[in-house]
């Protein structure tokens, strides 16, 4: 039978853990709003860029950009968006599992796999896994700056232009609501030509490009992909805070249950000790 001191110690240690988890829960809850605002704030830009890109795709331009080129898939690069901090339940691991499954499938088909990593958790996970890492960006904070992602994006896009990468996939968590985050793999390159292409081909038109199509399209498509990645980072941040809040809420509740159980045990132990002592005294008195 455990002694009372041990149980008391355990109760107090769980109580202090509960304090920490409940504090973290409140921190996450207060950050959710901010990260969500950022996420929604970034949406107009990515929507507008997407509209422009769709217009371009539907125009009959004489210049075709390498990002639209459908090549035989020999090498795939995964841009993985993970969180910087842990304690957010299965958020990261659910996404990573999906990627690892795809990477294994690639290996079977003889497709090379490489990674571009965003967030400390992604870096440690895929670093230990031992994949080819092209570049990384970490510690972006709660208010990420698009500038921090430029380098990473450039490496991947340059490799694609050189022909070392045929397919680029963006992996991140989509924010459905506070309770649900959906791990998603989205193909960035080759870019799709837009769905409403057929309806618009009847009207042949093209832009006036100033200065020239190649430079402009290159810049604009790069900007488009950057904006998609940036938006994914913002969205992942919102997911992280939501997942953290839920995980910490559960932890706090579990700690409460555990404390209740231990307190019951503590009282049992105490009562048993008293009973034993009493019976010893009574037994002793009877012997005398």
């Amino acid at each position, binding site marked *: *039978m*455990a002694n009372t001191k041990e149980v008391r110690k355990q109760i107090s240690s769980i109580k202090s853990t509960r304090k920490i988890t409940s504090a973290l829960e409140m921190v996450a809850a207060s950050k959710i709003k901010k990260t969500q605002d*950022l996420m929604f*704030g*970034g949406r*107009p*830009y990515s929507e*507008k*860029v997407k*509209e*422009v890109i769709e*217009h*371009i795709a539907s*125009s009959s331009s004489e210049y075709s950009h390498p990002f639209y080129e459908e090549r035989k898939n020999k090498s795939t690069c995964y841009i993985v968006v993970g969180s910087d901090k842990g304690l957010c339940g299965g958020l990261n691991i659910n996404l990573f599992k999906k990627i690892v499954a795809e990477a294994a499938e690639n290996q079977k088909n003889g497709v090379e796999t490489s990674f571009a*990593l965003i967030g400390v958790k992604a*870096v*440690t996970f895929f*670093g*230990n896994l031992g994949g080819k*890492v*092209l*570049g*990384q*960006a*970490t510690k972006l904070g709660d208010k990420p*700056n*698009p*500038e921090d992602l*430029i*380098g*990473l994006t*450039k*490496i991947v896009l*340059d490799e694609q232009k050189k022909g070392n990468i045929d397919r680029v996939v963006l992996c991140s968590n989509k924010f459905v609501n506070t309770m649900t985050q959906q791990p998603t793999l989205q193909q960035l390159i080759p870019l799709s030509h837009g769905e409403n292409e057929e309806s618009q081909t009847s009207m042949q*038109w*093209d*832009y*006036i*490009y*100033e*200065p020239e199509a190649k*430079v*402009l399209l290159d*810049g*604009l498509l790069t*900007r488009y992909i950057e*904006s998609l990645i*940036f938006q994914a980072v913002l969205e992942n941040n919102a997911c992280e805070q939501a997942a953290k809040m839920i995980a910490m809420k559960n932890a706090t509740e579990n700690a409460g249950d555990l404390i209740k159980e231990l307190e019951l045990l503590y009282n049992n132990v105490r009562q048993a000790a008293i009973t034993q002592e009493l019976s010893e005294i009574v037994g002793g008195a009877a012997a005398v």
Partner: protein
Amino acid sequence: MSEFKVSIVSSNEEIFSGTADMLYATGSLGEIGIAPGHSPLLTGLMPGPVRVCNEDKEETFFCSGGFIEVQPDVVTVLSDVAERADSMDEAKAIAAKEQAEKDLADNKDNVDFAKAASQLAEAAARLKTIQKLRKKI
């Protein structure tokens, strides 16, 4: 058609959305003025003011570069907040790559840490089992 839709967006917010009957901006090849019904145009933006005129009102925004897309009835200004230059992009790319290589070289520490953590967990589990066994006795 006497007016057109205008939206000015930057990567973290929508700056302006509304209608206008004239828009002036600094394109990469010089000042441009856009009237309703302009033919489709795609051009880069130089750092400078973008003026949106509507009847007698005029609003001015500052753009530090980006792109402008013109359709006969819609004008979209995609503004950058970040200062951009090819040389700067290059430096950032190198930095991101070096960071990855450095981490890979330092990875030994990480592995050691992970190993130690798993050993610790194992030891703790063993201790727990022993304690449980003792209780039964």
